[in-house]
């Protein structure tokens, strides 16, 4: 990375003469995926992804060319390709951008961590994961026990012809731990935080053997418990949603519809449009007065924390929804120029080989004042749902249906029996206006996923979501086949 940056600094001196603006973003990312299944090593894979995206502005249009040849010749070749195509495309550009969409930026960000990721040896990680799968084996009905750790170390550097120099280094760990129980025709799975939802910026300190063993034992016990559980009833009732499902609810029904590039129509052919219109900002009562949602790229240790987005825009915490009122969209400097609306620093690419687009980062529901006990006590009849297992929403982000792994029935203000196959569905704005209680700060759970898909060409990016448990009144719920 150091050599490449030095080469690029010299190369930029020449390239800046031929275009209105030139930038280059270097990424070197090592991802190691370690999987243990039934106490045996299942898969050990690593990927070193290293390359550069050369970006040019010509005639008010921005275009890109990616190369893994990081020599001066390689960068020059990518620059010439990008410039040639960008000039041709500029004759039919979607928008004439001003230079303000690429501000001069300088700074450095590093993920919080106590121990560097490479201080966890492969042998230690394998041992910790094996401790989790071994602890799940509470009976012969647990037929599958798996634990996966994905370790990601990213170094990035962004240099530009107007003097930007941004270094950002990230250490992340994403975990996927699950137990599957089978008894006759019944199959149930419990996972830690739901499928692919447990991710944070953290170091090797996460690999605590006792924590993994305890989690494994709990998952095994809950998977088996679900084998004997009743189906979730079909009715309209009150629902308490725990943080590991709130994550998905926030992601699909707040994050995506507020992306300005969706509202501007860029995503119409793939991820979809949005029910939110430009005139809704400042006017739409998105949810009840208890609903406060922030874009918070500065939250300590959350998966999508950073100091600058990929345009060099400095990242700051902003309220998207305050007291239920929609205030601000998830739009980069480019989208802000196009839409004439306020936005955030969210111009992000999944790697060196993709152009940045409007993305979520950390989108969080701010805590309220209720304890979990108070929320449960306020429910005469309802259901408490945990851990996402199914998700689907329409292309305008309105009609959703989500499913969870585990639920508890609430009767007369008390948690009673366990329920299996809990699902619920609704309409986005109607649903958020049913928000009746928001849990306190000590109940906030922080989750993150590496698989937020969007964009053409497609990009899967990391996002984080933090939320306390929340109570919604009068939600349509249902179960599985009896």
């Amino acid at each position, binding site marked *: 990375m150091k050599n490449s940056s030095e080469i690029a600094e010299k190369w930029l001196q020449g390239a800046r003469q031929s275009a209105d603006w030139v930038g280059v973003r270097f990424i070197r990312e090592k991802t190691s995926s370690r999987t243990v299944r039934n106490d045996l090593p299942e898969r050990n894979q690593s990927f070193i992804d290293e390359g550069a995206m050369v970006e040019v502005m010509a005639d008010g249009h921005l275009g890109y060319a990616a190369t893994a040849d990081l020599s001066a010749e390689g960068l020059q070749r*990518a620059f010439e390709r990008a410039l*040639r195509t960008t000039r041709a495309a500029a004759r039919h550009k979607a928008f004439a951008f001003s230079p303000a969409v690429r501000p001069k930026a300088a700074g450095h960000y590093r993920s919080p961590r106590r121990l560097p990721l490479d201080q966890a040896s492969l042998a230690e990680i394998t041992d910790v994961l094996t401790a989790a799968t071994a602890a799940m084996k509470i009976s012969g009905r647990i037929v599958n026990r798996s634990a996966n750790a994905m370790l990601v170390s990213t170094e990035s550097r962004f240099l530009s012809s107007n003097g930007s120099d941004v270094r950002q280094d990230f250490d992340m760990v994403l975990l996927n731990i699950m137990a599957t129980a089978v008894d006759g025709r019944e199959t149930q799975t419990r996972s830690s935080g739901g499928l692919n939802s447990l991710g944070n910026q953290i170091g090797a300190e996460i690999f605590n053997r006792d924590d993994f063993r305890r989690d494994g034992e709990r998952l095994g016990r809950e998977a088996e418990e679900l084998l004997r559980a009743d189906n979730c009833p079909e009715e309209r009732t009150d629902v308490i949603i725990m943080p590991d499902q709130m994550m998905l609810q926030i992601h699909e029904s707040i994050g995506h519809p507020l992306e300005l590039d969706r509202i501007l129509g860029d995503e119409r052919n793939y991820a979809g449009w949005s029910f939110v219109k430009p005139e809704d900002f400042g006017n739409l009562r998105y949810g009840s007065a208890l609903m406060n949602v922030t874009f918070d790229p500065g939250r300590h240790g959350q998966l999508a924390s950073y100091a600058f987005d990929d345009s060099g825009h400095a990242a700051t915490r902003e309220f998207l929804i305050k007291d239920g009122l929609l205030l601000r969209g998830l739009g980069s400097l480019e989208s802000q120029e196009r839409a004439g609306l306020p936005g955030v620093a969210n111009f992000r690419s999944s790697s060196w080989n993709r152009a940045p687009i409007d993305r979520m980062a950390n989108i969080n529901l701010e805590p309220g004042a209720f304890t979990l006990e108070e929320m449960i006590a306020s429910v005469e009849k309802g259901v408490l749902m945990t851990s996402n297992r199914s998700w689907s929403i329409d292309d305008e982000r309105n009609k959703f249906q989500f499913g969870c792994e585990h639920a508890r029935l609430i009767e007369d203000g008390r948690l009673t029996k366990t329920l299996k196959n809990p699902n619920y569905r609704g309409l986005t704005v109607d649903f958020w206006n049913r928000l009746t209680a928001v849990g306190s700060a000590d109940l906030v759970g922080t989750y993150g996923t590496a698989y937020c898909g969007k964009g053409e*060409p497609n990009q899967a990016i990391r996002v984080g979501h933090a939320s306390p448990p929340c109570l919604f009144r009068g939600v349509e719920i249902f179960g599985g086949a009896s």
Partner: protein
Amino acid sequence: MNRAGFMTWLKDHFQRLSDDLLSGLPAGEDVVLNLEAEDSLFLRFNANRVRQNTEVEQIVLSLRLQKDGRSTQISRTLSGRFERDRDLGLALLREAREEIRALPADPHLVPLKNHGTSNAEFPGQLPEAAALVESVAATAAGSDLAGIFASGAVVSANRNSRGQNHWFASESFSLDYSLYDGRKAAKGLHAGPRWSEVEWKSNLDRTREQLLVLRRPVVAVKPGRYRSYLAPAAVSEILFTLSWGALSASAWKQGQSPFRKFADGEKTFSPKLHLRENFGLGLAPAFNGFGEVAPTVVNLIEGGERRELLTSSRSAKEFGLSSNAAGDGEAPRSPEILPGRLEEKNALKELGTGLYLSNLHYLNWSDPASARLTGMTRYACCWVENGEIVGPIKDLRFDESLYDAFGPKLIDLTTHAEIDPDVMTYGARQLGGRRVPGMLIDDWTFTL
């Protein structure tokens, strides 16, 4: 790299590189190398105008080392410069040797073999970026087109230390687009190895005709059960969702398959349903990441009955099954549903009164134990009465068990099946696709 010579240059580069990496391995070490590469142009359109243009040249080498009953795989991007890439490849080998020492033995590891040699190349004729931009802007003038043009070479290659050597390279393009009229839209896809201006205009005209139908007044359709015709693109969405474990032997044995009851023999589908993996379609290489070559045809569902599940050699060893050279994830790579007896021109007449569904969106298993699938209607979905389209509907959510929809509710499949090439580009442009007919289904359940 010049786009025209990418495939030829890369073939020589990979052969020289793999010669160096595979020669001189000590006894007891086996290595399999995979190469995935592309030289791609992406043009993203919104309102007929270019939102972003991106060119990507990337080459990824994966090295899998097997030794003493242990294995590990390390991959990295290559620079395209031989000396540098040889050093990078040797560094991967050193790192893999270090990792192997730290791992316990893997009883399900399958020893590497020589699975033969193959060579398939499909050169194309692709437009230059400038010409393509002008063409889309001119032909789509007056419409509101959003979408992505992708073109260039995609390469997948495999060699191992036992002597196998596979090479698959193709040049192709796809223009995956939507035409909008206000909030209503029709979907189009123009793809192939050779760009033709005439064929593109014809494709666009057909999509415009669909869009005209959507100008009729919207018909309010309440949740309920409706006889429905699913056009091939809608069926393709369902078939894609089956790649999430439904046809995987490993998922079945691990209790993760939504088709568990089918795999157990407890459930069957309609005798009209035939599903198979067909590498004869030429959409994807028949070799997998180990270089194992799948049979040209693998019958998965025949007359509604279970035949084979997709089974990797690792799953075969672990569970005592027979491998059919499935890939690591045991997802279909080139699946097709065989046609039926319904003439496409009679589809609306046979539908009578109900829903015509051009496309589906965001499918997911809502109750895996009963193979229940939920998702949304999207694009040109219409209400039909007495065989005539009345008007477009507002999008509906369905929630339906495939044991019912592809079982007793399946009335017929069309005689014509369409190829739906894979246009996904997560990480890189993908190879593969599906061939599917339309389906007429009774009492399809809509819930929201």
